[in-house]
């Protein structure tokens, strides 16, 4: 494997808040905590930051807060730098990172602060469900009462019909990720579950049940991106080999194939090509397991597991820590950590930076190449980032 010689952009520091319920704190409080800790991790100060990109999806509809990037910049004491809110549904955090990488690569900024945040638990669940449905194209899906568990229920139905994916296959994803997340102090669910519990949980959207669904949460995560020459701690900085994005339909009837997400395959293809990395080179993956079936489809779309074989391979523990394939979601993923939607993409980066520094709680031995995958909506957008130690 030849790592790309021009991998001169690095993640110099990362941090995240605990994902869970934070009723005593506001959206900006969470973002400021994560951003300040990421700057400290990078050994950089507020005055070093040239730009801020902030990913949030529900900041306006649930919390009524616009211009959040500027609010956070002021609270952090940044200079009068450009601040931009980035919205790509559940991929908002991954896209914020991409804009930071692009700004550094273009020479428009030397140090960029990328933040993701959302606060969801202070709103009634039906209101959150309605807010999340804004990620569908207006006109059909929402008006018929389609929810995101419902959309991924359709994906599971189609995947079962084509590949024979079973209830036990879906449950195995939840059991693996809740096992990885057990004891994670940053996770909303830090306890394991067994197969029988997952399979018998109350139905949400057939065939998906409660533990097939990532929990809503409050939280923030952040990453500091810069040129390697500008990183005060180059030895702790992690190279960004590629940071790519793809798009696809936001209406269910326009999805050509429910068993694959075109946004993911487009972003992954570009990332592997631009980094000169093959899927088999990747040691550790944080992918978008918003639902158990999503991890199965994502694993196939990213080339982590062969098409049509992911469900069986996951059930056979191939992607568990110590398994024969790349370890997938050693943090516990969205299913365990929780899914404050705008923060998820940068929480994935935080976990992978810890992995590549050799400091992760569930350390993949010798991890050298890592992949983050963040999916938005019904595959309307996706980001894929490749990192290397």
């Amino acid at each position, binding site marked *: 494997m030849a790592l790309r010689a021009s991998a001169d952009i690095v993640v110099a520091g990362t941090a995240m808040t605990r994902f869970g319920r934070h009723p005593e704190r506001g959206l900006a409080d969470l973002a400021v905590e994560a951003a300040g800790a990421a700057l400290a991790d990078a050994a950089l100060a507020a005055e070093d930051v040239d730009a801020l990109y902030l990913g949030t999806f529900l900041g306006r509809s649930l919390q009524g807060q616009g211009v959040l990037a500027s609010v956070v910049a002021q609270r952090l004491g940044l200079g009068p730098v450009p601040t931009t809110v980035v919205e790509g549904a559940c991929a908002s955090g991954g896209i914020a990172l991409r804009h930071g990488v692009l700004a550094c690569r273009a020479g428009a900024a030397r140090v960029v602060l990328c933040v993701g945040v959302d606060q969801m638990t202070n709103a009634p669940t039906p209101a959150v469900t309605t807010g999340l449905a804004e990620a569908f194209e207006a006109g059909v899906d929402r008006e018929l*009462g389609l929810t995101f568990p419902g959309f991924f229920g359709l994906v599971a139905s189609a995947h079962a019909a084509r590949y024979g994916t079973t209830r036990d296959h879906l449950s195995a994803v939840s059991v693996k990720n809740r096992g990885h997340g057990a004891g994670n102090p940053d996770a909303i669910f830090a306890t394991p579950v067994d197969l029988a519990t997952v399979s018998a949980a109350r139905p949400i959207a057939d065939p998906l049940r409660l533990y097939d669904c990532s929990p809503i949460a409050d939280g923030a995560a952040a990453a500091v991106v810069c040129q390697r020459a500008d990183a005060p701690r180059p030895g702790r900085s992690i190279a960004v080999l590629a940071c790519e994005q793809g798009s696809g339909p936001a209406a269910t009837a326009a999805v050509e194939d429910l068993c694959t997400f075109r946004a993911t395959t487009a972003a992954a293809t570009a990332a592997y090509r631009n980094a000169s990395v093959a899927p088999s080179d990747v040691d550790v993956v944080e992918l978008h397991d918003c639902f158990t079936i999503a991890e199965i489809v994502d694993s196939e779309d990213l080339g982590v597991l062969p098409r049509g074989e992911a469900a069986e391979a996951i059930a056979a523990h191939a992607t568990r820590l110590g398994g024969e394939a790349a370890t997938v979601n050693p943090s516990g993923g969205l299913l365990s950590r929780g899914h404050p939607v705008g923060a998820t993409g940068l929480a994935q980066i935080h976990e992978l930076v810890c992995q590549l520094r050799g400091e992760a709680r569930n350390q993949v031995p010798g991890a050298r190449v890592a992949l983050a995958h963040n999916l938005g909506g019904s595959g309307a957008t996706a980001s894929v980032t490749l990192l290397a130690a």
Partner: protein
Amino acid sequence: MSGTAVVPAVVIAATAIHAAPEGFEPGYVLALVDVAGARRLVRLEMGPDGPPRPGSSVPYRDGGG
């Protein structure tokens, strides 16, 4: 002339919504169906065996001209 015609539709995927958004009562079925080569997301009544299976045929009320 105006009206509607019931035409066959083949189920590509189907789900029953048990946790509904604001303004909806739980328990309805949504199906992605193929109607003469065009895909539609449609709402169906819940059958005794749950949502219809992919590959099965369901009636679809098409808008008339």
